[in-house]
């Protein structure tokens, strides 16, 4: 058994590109999906709202692991072959979409009804009320928790290792089993996750701080 050297470190660092790619696919896909669901969720049709709520509850109530297994094995068992990357991305997209919907819906709900009413009183159509009055305020509220969720999503890409997909965590397992030095191997893996998440953690903190200051400003 050998120690951890340059080839092992390179292997882990290069595997991080799959973690990054998975995170980007999940967040772009999930962001788009979440936006559509959020808008559908404030629809005046009760049926549409019910569908959105049902879907969000279903995805949030299913462990991400099961979603991954369903996307990887379940889909190809029913004849659709997506490969490890795309099926992991699909599962993570559903997951991110459902959670972002909850975050964004909450942000819109937090805007006082008076804002809608005021906008309506100005003669704005519902789409204009949303675009010009509600969303600018809601986006500001939603930003910090969205950034916080990005950190969750990045870390949860590690579950793709279960199906054998060689992203950061699986690379760590492979190096750990080639060198029998799990502490060093997973130490490097943990450090890389930390580096990937750090910008978003800092951003969340900064946004939260800014929001607190803004709220204080309003109070005065």
């Amino acid at each position, binding site marked *: *058994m*050998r120690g951890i*050297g340059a*080839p*092992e470190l*390179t*292997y882990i660092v290069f595997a991080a590109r799959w973690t990054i790619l998975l995170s980007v696919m999940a967040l772009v896909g999930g962001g788009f999906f979440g936006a559509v669901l959020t808008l559908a969720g404030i629809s005046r049709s009760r049926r549409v709202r019910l569908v959105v709520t049902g879907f969000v509850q279903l995805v949030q109530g299913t*462990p*991400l*692991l*099961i979603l991954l*297994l369903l996307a990887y*094995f*379940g889909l*190809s*068992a029913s*004849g659709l*072959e997506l490969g490890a990357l795309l099926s992991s991305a699909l599962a993570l997209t559903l997951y991110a979409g459902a959670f972002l919907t909850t975050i964004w819906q909450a942000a819109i709900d937090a805007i006082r009804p008076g804002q809608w009413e005021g906008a309506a009183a100005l003669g704005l159509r519902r789409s204009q009320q949303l675009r010009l009055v509600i969303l600018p305020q809601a986006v500001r509220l939603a930003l910090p928790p969205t950034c916080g969720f990005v950190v969750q999503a990045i870390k949860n890409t590690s*579950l793709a*290792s*279960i*199906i*054998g*997909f*060689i992203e950061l965590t*699986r690379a760590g*397992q*492979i*190096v*750990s*089993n*080639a*060198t*029998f*030095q*799990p*502490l060093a191997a997973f130490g490097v893996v943990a450090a890389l996750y930390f580096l990937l998440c750090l910008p978003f953690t800092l951003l969340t903190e900064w946004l939260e701080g800014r929001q607190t200051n803004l709220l204080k400003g309003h109070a005065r």
Partner: protein
Amino acid sequence: MNAASHPRCWRSVLGAFAFFALSIAGAHAQTFDAIQKRGKLLAAINLAAPPFGTTDSQMEPAGYDVDMAKLLAKDLGVSLEIVPVTNESRIPTLLTGKADVIISVLQITPERAKSVMFSSPYGMHQSLVFAPAETKIASLADLSGKRVGVARGSVYSNILAQAAIPGMQIIQFGDDSATLNALVAGQVDAVGTVTFLANELKKRYPDRHFEQKVALQDNIYAMGVRRGDFDFLRWLNTFIFVHHHDGEIARSYEKWMGEPLRNLPTF
């Protein structure tokens, strides 16, 4: 993520997929022709299972299973693509058509034979119980009251579970590395492992005086293909017969296992 910490729970989920996939397995009956047409062999190998599937000093796939897969692709006259799997995802990966064959220390069991067809064995080794010298284990019965570490989905975990020693606590870890390091850290009293890994651990921690305790039942493993893939199965058996005869299998086995290959039984 409770499911992740309950291997049984999600193993049954995988089992459900495997069962589901069985219904379409028939559609893949022409694997042998498909490989030729594709010009590529898709072999499912766990690369975190030394010395069978592991990586060399350049982080390229290596090991006994990898050697077998390379030889297989060479004889088929096609290129090799390793489909990385974990122990638990081996069979679902095969059954859902993501790989042509499992070459990943797949122990032959009647249970597994319900979902895959086994080739003739290409390897066999004794699993053993490995522990510090001061731990008294003279027979399997002495494992009663002990914490025994095994890699999840590994042969040791199956064999020890079958032994059903009263009072023995089987602790499952993610892989061999975690299992052996748990022994080093004292989190378990003994582990189930193979001679090769036991020797490596002795070399690395000479002051810990680890020693082999009890030999477990032989683990005999073979390549696995989808049910109904008789053409490919026949080809695999021919391959194993030929390289058993020319000594290629024995040479590779000795290189990776550090011990000579005993006489392999065949079907």
